């Protein structure tokens, strides 16, 4: 089976690891070979969390620079930072709601011009799908569901060899019972944002 390499980048607290877990479970249910790795040493202390997911015939669990087929970014400046993981034919899916690093918040660093983010990514890679996943999560009823909004968006692009049903079932299996409905709604919002777009 063809190999698809996905990088997910987020800021600590955005639920990247849960999103990876959902995708992993969905792949298991779909009988698709999957390997994943994560670097999250200091996530609780505001650092970047990066996950690599490799679907199909491969044994590596990490992705080298220039070899990710899909980049799913939870935050626009982190998406830009992770562009080095992409090749010219990669697809990029990104949340556009900024979460500036603390250094920027206190005036000791400059956040990249948001208006430039989309044109830049478009110039470098094959396809860009952007949305404000944070807004959609809020609309779904919980800002913490931003991770699942982005999974909905990812599902709509059909970039992964996983069906919508596999992902939805994995959400039911993975998230806490009380949050299943909100998350399914968040998933749908993410999906719609791409299909409309």
């Amino acid at each position: 089976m063809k190999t698809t390499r996905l990088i997910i980048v987020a800021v600590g607290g955005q639920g990247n690891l849960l999103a990876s877990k959902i995708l992993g479970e969905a792949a298991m249910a779909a009988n698709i070979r999957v390997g994943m790795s994560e670097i999250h040493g200091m996530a609780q202390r505001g650092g970047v969390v990066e996950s690599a997911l490799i679907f199909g015939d491969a044994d590596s669990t990490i992705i080298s620079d220039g070899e990710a087929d899909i980049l799913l970014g939870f935050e626009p400046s982190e998406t830009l930072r992770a562009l080095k993981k992409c090749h010219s034919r990669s697809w990029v899916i990104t949340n556009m709601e900024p979460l500036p690093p603390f250094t920027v918040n206190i005036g000791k660093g400059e956040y990249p011009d948001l208006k430039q983010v989309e044109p830049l990514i478009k110039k470098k890679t094959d396809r860009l799908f952007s949305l404000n996943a944070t807004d959609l999560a809020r609309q779904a009823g919980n800002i913490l569901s931003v991770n699942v909004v982005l999974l909905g968006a990812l599902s709509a692009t059909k970039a992964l060899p996983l069906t919508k049903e596999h992902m939805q079932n994995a959400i039911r299996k993975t998230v806490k019972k009380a949050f299943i409905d909100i998350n399914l709604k968040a998933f749908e919002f993410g999906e719609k944002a791409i299909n409309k777009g």
Partner: protein
Amino acid sequence: MTHKLLTDQPGKTELMLGNEAIARGAIEAGLCVGATYPGTPSSEISLSLFQISQKTDLYFEYSTNEKVAMEVAAAASASGVRSMCIMKHVGLNVAADPLMTLAYVGVKAGMVILTADDPLMFSSQNEQDNRYYALLSGLPMLEPSSIDEARAMTKYAFELSEQLQEPVLLRTTTRINHSTGPVILDTILPINRQSHFTKNPFRLVTIPSVSRNLHVQLLENIKQAASLSEASPWNICTGIGKWGIICNGVSFNYVKDAISTLDISDKTRVLRIGFSHPLPVSMIQSFLKDCERVLIVEEGEPWLETQIKALAQEVGLTVSIKGKDNHLFSRLYEYDPAMVRSMIANYFNIPDVQPPVPDLSDLPEIPSRPPNLCAGCGHRATFYAVKQAAKTMDVEVIYPTDIGCYTLGVLPPLSMADYLICMGSSVGTSCGFSKVLDKKIVAFIGDSTFFHSGIPGLINAVFNQHQFTLVILDNGTTAMTGHQPHPGVDMTQWNLDGYTQISIEKMVRAIGVPHVSVVRPYQVKKSIDALKEAFAFKGVSVVIAQEPCALINKKRKKRAFQVTDQCKDHRVCINELACPAFYLESNHLKINPAQCVGCAVCAQICPENAIIPVKESQS
């Protein structure tokens, strides 16, 4: 609810983190006694086993340090029950003393020593290659390449240990510990708790005359281990070509992917070494004989390479064997799939296959996102108070520090770290600094690290009458590695009984430290005053700064603070504290109420008293 790692359905496939798979392997082997000191990347193994120990007959403990953990496991094994100790790579340095002689004494029931190496140092102070411990001690060593193999090898390690009557080193790297993949569950053996200790001092008490015999026995055991390695299914030879690749651990995955991408499977044969000490000598020599040239792919030091070159020499082989080289692999950092692929292409002189990459030279500079002490972290308050107290000293202050969240104090604007080598080094190095420098020495150590290895240094300081101040940052947990307990923790708060809490203050006083004070760092002025006194004291002084970790303090009622119009934009708060709850809006300071825990430290240092609590009605 039963623990997910206790699922008793052999043949079922589950997605697991590498560390969970290792814990599962130990459970399947009927592990009876486990001990650890937490350390990334190994921490989740212990977390899983500690949780499981609440539900089964498994005994699992957080020991004060890795040396103690290994001794706990050794005694359990000597008494006939299966045991395991778990640590990060540098933890094995702490446990190296028992390790070396335990190899002489050997074990009765299976004992596994898990050492988690950290190439590239994601969360470590060095990237030492612990495979040398296998050579140094003579102990057998296993190295998994995949998550399911991590489970299966752990289970097998107990059998191997019983077969050889020696502890077995199970060596991982971060990309095994922190990768996730499918694991096929195997049967769970029941825990055999039947212990029996047979007195045999002339085998178990390592006086010189005994050890002379034990060393002979160890060499015999290594020989037996060598024959097991020779026949071990963990040493896998695949492929048929004249190009040879020998590899271990995660490098095997990168090699397999490269061979497939480069489409050279008809030309290449691969030897994956999983039972890596002792090496399968004949297997390697016959592999070399079949090759025209050989590439060795191993992260870290040229551990395989050096031994394999010697093995080639023994049988007079002159085949080209390369690995670490200016034009090939580095001894630095971790490897990745593209790097391994391009080295293979380079060595065997074929074109590399890589997707075209965009030119990113015109990307704007992206602000870094360094980890930061949390909003309301007591360490930040203590660092601030120490800095203020230090300003009143007429000499420069040097700050030896230690390993924990507070190491983040090295970053500006706190900049409170001048020297660090290992766990506990803040205290020992302060003894040396204070003897040779005409400066004030103020050292920082966390509560868990103090118990781990800070105490002998402090006793040394009192005995030899050194002159420094030790600040013990007591947040009531081992925060950095995921909030594990330590001897100073009140375990009843987690509804766990069977523990005795040890008071750091009483212990420091019992050591005979002549000047001891306890502060609450959220009380800024009082803390500064106490620190000034401690700094002025001639001799060893200890200040214990007690504030529970802001991430897990359940008792504290959170009440956010806000900035009023009184703010005259001095920005003392931002420039001195840099709490992540601060942000600027239209160039004015604001406090994010979702992040603020209400420590009120900024409110106390604001020159305009402009920071006040949010009124209940506002929030």
